[in-house]
């Protein structure tokens, strides 16, 4: 019993160390990747295409809907307090600071995190990774780094699009609820947003992108030999990705606004 717990803890720690070592390896392989030629650029472009471009519709719909909800609730509640002006602060706080980064991260975890884990897991099972090794191609710099960069770039860009659609979509809705001139709306937003908000938002997206990519690739490579491990790893990849993103979100919010 006790030794069982000990073994479990040991295993946890060694897994954690292994994961950290993996992360370090990945970061060390980035220069190698960047100095390499067009072959790898193609993987990066494909990754941004799948992770970023193809998720755009979902992100746009989600953010516009959330922006609309904030506007509707805000126009119901805030006039009673005489604080209509606060709607801009709330929009910025919710969309730019919090939901933009974390919801895009969730979307990317669900879409691309699973895809990456599944793909790499399949690569392991079908010996494609060994084929890379036999050719002398480092799978970390060839497979992980472009995914890391692609996912990170995509998450940051999707966050920007989330803001665009979330703030403009909510403007469209505000026209039905309580018409407001466009320049007044934009001015209100510009008045409410600070550089810290933008910086925090982008930082969060960067961190989330790195987390998602590392977790997904780690679990992909953690598949040992059986195809049945792939879905299990995909599930863990999502779970770990979501949890780590939420933790990171809390930490960054605390650091930025305290």
């Amino acid at each position: 019993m006790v030794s069982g717990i000990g073994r479990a803890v040991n295993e946890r720690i060694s897994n954690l160390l292994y994961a950290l070592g993996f992360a370090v390896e990945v970061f060390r392989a980035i220069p190698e990747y960047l100095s390499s030629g067009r072959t790898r650029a193609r993987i990066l472009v494909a990754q941004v295409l799948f992770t970023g471009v193809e998720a755009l519709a979902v992100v746009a719909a989600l953010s516009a809907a959330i922006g609309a909800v904030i506007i509707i609730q805000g126009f119901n509640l805030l006039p009673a307090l005489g604080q209509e002006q606060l709607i801009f602060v709330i929009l910025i706080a919710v969309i730019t600071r919090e939901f933009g980064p974390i919801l895009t991260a969730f979307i990317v975890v669900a879409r691309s995190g699973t895809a990456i884990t599944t793909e790499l897991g399949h690569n392991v099972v079908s010996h494609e990774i060994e084929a890379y090794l036999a050719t002398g191609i480092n799978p970390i710099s060839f497979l992980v780094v472009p995914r890391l960069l692609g996912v990170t770039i995509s998450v940051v860009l999707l966050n920007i699009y989330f803001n665009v659609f979330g703030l403009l979509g909510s403007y469209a809705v505000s026209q039905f609820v309580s018409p407001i001139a466009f320049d007044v709306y934009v001015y209100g937003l510009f008045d409410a947003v600070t550089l810290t908000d933008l910086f925090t938002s982008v930082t969060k997206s960067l961190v989330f992108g790195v987390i998602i990519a590392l977790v997904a690739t780690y679990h992909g490579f953690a598949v040992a030999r059986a195809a049945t491990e792939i879905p299990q790893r995909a599930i863990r990849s999502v779970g770990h990705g979501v949890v780590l993103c939420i933790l990171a979100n809390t930490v960054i919010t605390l650091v930025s606004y305290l």
Partner: protein
Amino acid sequence: MSQQVSSAETATTPPYWEEPAVELSSVSVVFGHTTALRDVSVSFLKGKTTAVIGPAGSGKSTLLRAAAGIIPIDAGEVRHFSSPIDSLNRREAAAHKRLIGFVFQDAALWQNMSIRRNLALPLEFHYPNISQADVDAKTDEALRRVRFRGNPDLRPATLSAGQAKLVAFARATILDPEILFLDEPTTFLDENAYRNVVELLEVMRRNGRTLIMVTHNSEVTHRIADRIVLVDEGTVESTGRTRQILEASDERTQQLLHAAVFSELEDAPDAPAEGFSQADDATTDQNPVRPASRSESSQQASCSTPEHLPKEAANDGGGPR
């Protein structure tokens, strides 16, 4: 009993005129809680073709991968041309990888790129300044060499297993490696492809390349292999010239040889050894290879000729060499 054979012929100390291309000394490989290789020391001679044979689950594939340096080893040392491969710097490692090729049992083509890209990638990786025209010329030539018929711009998923194996062979040899590792080079092949591969292997052997292959196919063993490494339960049972091993009189070696050839039916080289007993009581019939490959390549017109297995391919020692 097998100790007698191995003590007489074990290749840890090869004759002075035969240089080793690949040497393993005291190599162990552990997967989780199972030891796949236990303190293995073996040499593969330069310019020779060595067949690694043994029953299913005996650790042949692991031995091959460890020898090629594509799986990490837990103990011991692997040397290629006398250089330990783990202590190479990045530049040397890249140069070293140019010298080796590996053909996987299931082809292991990169599914996310076209067949042509599968061949071009090693070229572009090792020769970053190569022109597109050279790449195209080289890939076309490699595909022609293996007599690949098909559209090289399609993805590997469109290929039959036999065709995929040919492409894998083309990919592994596109850099004209000194040492070629082959994991079951002839499984999944229809008759034409099978002949092509055997021919290609013979050409490479004549050209002085070092070939190391895991195989169950007795014909291939007889025709091509200069030497045999007999593996069982993670250790090397015996090594020696093909004829010596095949004609060895001790029961243990004969048992293992039977098991080795039969276990190809299992089609799972790394599977746990429960297939062993099954293989044990099987007889050395001539059909062991074909049924599997026929079903694998049933869409190939050429595979409708069932009797392509050479009659002399029984493992009674009367090899065609």
